[in-house]
């Protein structure tokens, strides 16, 4: 009996050899799939000539030029003028002057990054607040046509963004919400609330009803029980949902590129427009991409246990 269960091919208890082969293939895939990402991170630390060298340079002298170019705008000047300026004040000054240029001012990257932060956090706050209320109601009360309402809520997220953008563009133009942070926060809240309702409903379903009922027997009203009992119990779920909403709002491009152009523009539509002298400034693009992706890497690690739930709208819980 035990002989049969430990055959070399057993699915339940794989043999050491099959484990090793599986491990090798998976690690190989993981490493290959990281090459593009590693390359763009490296490019951020190259000089522009190194970034377009052939054959591609794997070993290079790291430079902060990409990061300097990302956050500044520069103008070309004569040697005499540059020498008349005196000693360079910052590292970026020094790097820029080596290319016969001086820093003219800050670039738009940091304001765009800031916009991304405000819009992502603002919309996440509203989406999760609305979502947790609706999710609680759907989870605990008998609501007529609940399944249809839930489907309606989810279907709004499935719509092609470009198709939705046409009327939103017209509506925002009428209301004066074009290219405003408020407009983008409202829009992303509407897109995220569907995910929030579905995810949070799953989390709240898992909290035993008996907790609130016990609290209500002790004299809490339903509202009290919701705030004092259910919300703390759902804290992990709320945090996971919030991170999913943040990721969506942080990454969103289609609405951003069509509905914003200046004041409320976020980082994703801005990064592709980083252009240096004579073509794309790839080190600056690499630097901008790196800064933009770091929060996402952190989120991935934080979320790894809840990822599956998030991407299946709470249906698969592992």
């Amino acid at each position, binding site marked *: *009996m035990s002989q049969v*269960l430990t055959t070399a091919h057993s699915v*339940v208890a794989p043999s050491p050899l099959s*484990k090793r082969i*599986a*491990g090798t293939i*998976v690690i190989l895939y*993981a490493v290959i*799939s*990281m090459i*593009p990402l590693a*390359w*763009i991170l490296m*490019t951020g630390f190259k000089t522009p000539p190194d*970034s377009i*060298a*052939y*054959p*591609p340079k794997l070993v290079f002298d790291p430079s902060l030029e990409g990061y300097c170019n990302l956050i500044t705008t520069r103008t070309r000047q004569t040697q005499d003028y540059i020498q008349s300026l005196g000693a360079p004040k910052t590292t970026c000054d020094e790097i820029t002057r080596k290319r016969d240029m001086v820093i003219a001012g800050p670039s738009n990257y940091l304001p765009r990054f800031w916009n991304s932060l405000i819009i992502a956090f603002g919309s996440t706050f509203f989406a999760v607040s609305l979502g947790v209320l609706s999710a*609680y*109601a759907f989870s605990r009360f008998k609501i007529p046509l609940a399944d249809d*309402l839930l*489907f309606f809520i989810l*279907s*709004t997220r*499935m*719509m*092609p*963004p*470009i*198709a939705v*953008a*046409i*009327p939103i*563009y017209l509506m925002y133009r009428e209301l004066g919400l074009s290219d405003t942070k408020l407009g983008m926060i409202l*829009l992303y*809240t*509407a897109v995220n609330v*569907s995910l929030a309702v579905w995810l949070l409903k799953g989390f709240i379903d898992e909290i035993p009803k008996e907790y609130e*009922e016990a609290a209500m*027997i002790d004299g809490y009203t*339903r*509202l009290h029980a919701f705030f004092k009992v259910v919300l703390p119990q759902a804290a992990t779920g709320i945090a996971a949902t919030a991170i999913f909403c943040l990721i969506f709002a942080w*990454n969103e*491009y289609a609405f951003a*590129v069509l509905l914003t152009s200046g004041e409320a523009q976020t980082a*994703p539509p801005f990064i*592709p427009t980083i252009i240096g002298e004579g073509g794309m400034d*790839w080190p600056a*693009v*690499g630097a901008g*991409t790196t800064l933009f*992706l770091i929060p996402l*890497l952190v989120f*991935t690690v934080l979320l790894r246990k809840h*990822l599956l739930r998030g991407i*299946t*709208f709470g*249906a*698969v819980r592992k």
Partner: protein
Amino acid sequence: MTMVTTEEEAQVRVADHASRTTSPSVTRRVRGLSDRAIAWAFIAPTILLLLAINIFPLIWTIYLSFTNYQANRPNRPITHVGTKWYQEILNSPDVWAAMQATAHFVFWTILLQTLIGFGLAYLIDRKFRGHAFWTTIILIPMMLSPAVVGNFWKFLYQPQIGLFNYIVSFFTGIPPSSFEMLGSVSLSPWSIIIVDTWMWTPYVMLICLAGLRSIPDYIYEAAEVDRASPWRQFWSITLPMALPFIMLAVLFRRIENFKMFDMVNLLTGGGPGSTTEVASITLKREAFEKWRTGYSSAFAIILFVAVFGLANIYVKALNRVKQR
């Protein structure tokens, strides 16, 4: 009024009694707002927001799709054109070309992602040492912004300096400047398929892994007692039992790729010519470059209907998986 009070009092008495004999369903309706009021107060803000940002614009789009309105000429009087745009779209060779480009893209990305994703999940399910760490690494691409991904793959695809061309030439000997992934009519559809597969295989992998892990061990144990070959176990147990999960992943990727915009817009912008012009890119050109608002509204409605149908099937699949 008095009637109600006495009724409430009676309920309180019943509730007090009930709380001692633990029948909490009655106590619920006693204090504070009624449950029904709370339910609607909790749901209403969400529904109102969705009505304002999704449904109202949708109705407006339907209206515009029957007019010759142009968003860049708001003062021109609107004339109603009936179903002219719908007929034009359904008879337009450009639209069918876009649909074909979309279908080609959707077919190959889903095929590749399902094969590689399921294969990876199957291997990770061997639970080799460190599998949790490597799974997290594999998941990274799907968390990134498709727009930013499209933009940096453009760098990798550069004909002379790009890493992709260099690696291809390193292994095949083809000179790296002799082919342009983004610029050539035959290669550009594959350039977007490669990036999408790179990005979304982890998604399919993760859902397949959940499917594989949902299969209880005792079924395999029973199969081994019956001396079923590993091959037989795979086809009779693993695949059929993981199938609902695979279907879920496929359906969701189909919806997502059907409306794909950001990554393609940045990689190829629909070009060269219109070889990678998927439906959303056509829609963007019509709506925001040619400003044919009426026409593009009709196109948007057609896409809505298609996605709505797909979403319906998807939710059914979700519910099927949920019962497991």
